[in-house]
């Protein structure tokens, strides 16, 4: 089982456009949307939900008012400002650490499961797609990524390629998305912000020993910046660098709920197809090849 994760550091560089295209091109599709705070892939993949699972992210403190004597000890020891003067727990701030429960002299506090969201397993043409919907302010978002990945693993065989849409940033959600992946496609754009975030995400990918594959999306918007990004990649010894041109068809495709590679005349389509063939080669095998369609 090989695992490919698509990440971007910065949001809005076209990560989901690229992921949905790779998903469309892959045979035996195994797709996971791990951009759990803003999941968008389900808007493009025409999926049918076959299973939903309640996701419990962590626990949360509950005060039994009949036992509480208002001593305020819990409030004094809580480091997350989650307990008010009236000894009410703010569920958005409670970290679920259990310190209040431990310190309460009257055993008036219990830790309860926090329902954090749902994980959906769905069917798509020739495969499966897993994603999640989280409640507002959800904690432990890294864990939901682990759960999504576990779910898609269950549907996958030895020879399958799993494609993961990662989250923006460099925090826990991203770390959980890239752990144990064979290759990370980093989608960037030719802007100062794009380069700055590429540098940050690349140091993370390096820490995790994952093969990097940089895609400069909309490269022709600022060719000077594209050159600067390429130079940076060369300095860092990143060999895989590919470019995708700006293409107004992308907006049209979004409107029609399609992936860009379904518009075979578009400029972006051709580049992304080439990238797909190249990625397959670099991941060692023809098992996943389906680039003629």
């Amino acid at each position: 089982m090989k695992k490919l994760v698509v990440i971007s550091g910065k949001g809005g560089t076209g990560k989901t456009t690229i992921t949905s295209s790779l998903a469309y091109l892959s045979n035996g599709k195994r797709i996971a949307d791990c951009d759990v705070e803003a999941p968008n892939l389900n808007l493009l993949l025409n999926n049918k939900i076959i299973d939903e699972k309640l996701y419990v992210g962590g626990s949360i403190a509950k005060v039994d008012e009949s036992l509480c004597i208002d001593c305020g000890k819990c409030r004094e020891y809580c480091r997350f400002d989650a307990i008010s003067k009236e000894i009410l727990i703010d569920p958005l701030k409670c970290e679920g650490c259990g310190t209040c429960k431990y310190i309460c002299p009257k055993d008036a506090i219990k830790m309860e499961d926090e329902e954090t969201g749902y994980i959906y397993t769905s069917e798509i043409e020739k495969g499966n797609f897993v994603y999640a919907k989280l409640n507002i302010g959800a904690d432990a978002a890294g864990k939901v990524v682990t759960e999504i990945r576990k779910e898609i693993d269950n549907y996958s065989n030895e020879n399958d390629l799993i494609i993961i849409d990662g989250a923006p940033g460099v925090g826990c959600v991203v770390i959980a998305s890239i752990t144990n992946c064979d290759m990370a496609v980093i989608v960037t754009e030719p802007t100062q912000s794009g380069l700055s975030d590429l540098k940050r995400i690349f140091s993370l990918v390096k820490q995790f020993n994952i093969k990097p594959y940089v895609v400069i999306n909309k490269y022709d918007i600022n060719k000077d910046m594209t050159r600067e990004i390429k130079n940076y990649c060369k300095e860092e010894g990143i060999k895989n660098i590919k470019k995708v041109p700006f293409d107004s068809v992308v907006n049209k495709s979004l409107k029609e709920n399609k992936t860009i590679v379904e518009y075979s005349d578009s400029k972006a389509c051709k580049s992304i197809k080439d990238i797909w063939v190249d990625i397959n080669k670099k991941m060692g095998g023809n098992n996943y090849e389906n680039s003629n369609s």
Partner: protein
Amino acid sequence: MNISVLSGKGGTGKTTVATNLAVYLSSKGKNVQYLDYDVEEPNGFIFLKPKIQSVKDVKVRVPKIDSDKCIGCGECSKECRFNALAVINKGVVLFEKLCHNCGLCSLVCKENAITEKQRKIGEIDIGNKERLKVYRGKIDIGEPMGIPIIKELKNYLYKDSINIIDSPPGSSCSVVNTIDDSDYSVVVTEPTIFGLHDLEIAVNVIRQMNIPLGVIINKSGSEDNIIEEYLNSENIELLGKIPFSRDIAKAYSKGELIDNIPLGAFEKVLEKIEMGRL
């Protein structure tokens, strides 16, 4: 007064709005601060190019185990809900990155073998661009939890200045912690189905926290009705639009502030401030 700028989806122009809004309000003689809370990818300084005056480390407290006192009873490991401690061969192994800094283990330890030490997870850069005071939180690469940096940044929110807060994207705990003391939220979106979908998520977060809000459509064009229909049905104020333009995209790509940004939305925010409506 705290005004947070949010986006749900990344890359919609949140930082463009936040930085230009801060500069605009400052140019109108207001006492303004810009604070970048997007600690995983703080990009506001690329555009503001401030003079940095100081850098402060952000540290969290993690347990420190005195191996002479530790008897390997395993109580700390049992109580820790984050599984940040393990007890092997009568000694404690600590996993700092799993630690949520709650302090429970030091309370639990009957041998008083656990105290706390400081561990750096990021930094705050402080500077200014002319009259505008600027702050940037930045998480160290490989650190999973940015919330302590967001909380630290709150120490710089002065009541008598207008604090423009550049929020992280998304809808999770970092966003909730960013906006919990906001007086007003500006949501930046773009007219695509992704933009709409993530706008709805952002609006849900803000409404749950009872914060008044307005929306700016960035990269505006012929598809604006996708967003406008939603705003009408939800009774949300449209503050203004920034058209899709090559000039703006170019300025952005070079990391420049935008000279000719349409000011309609910013004027509305200023008016709200001056009328005391926030």
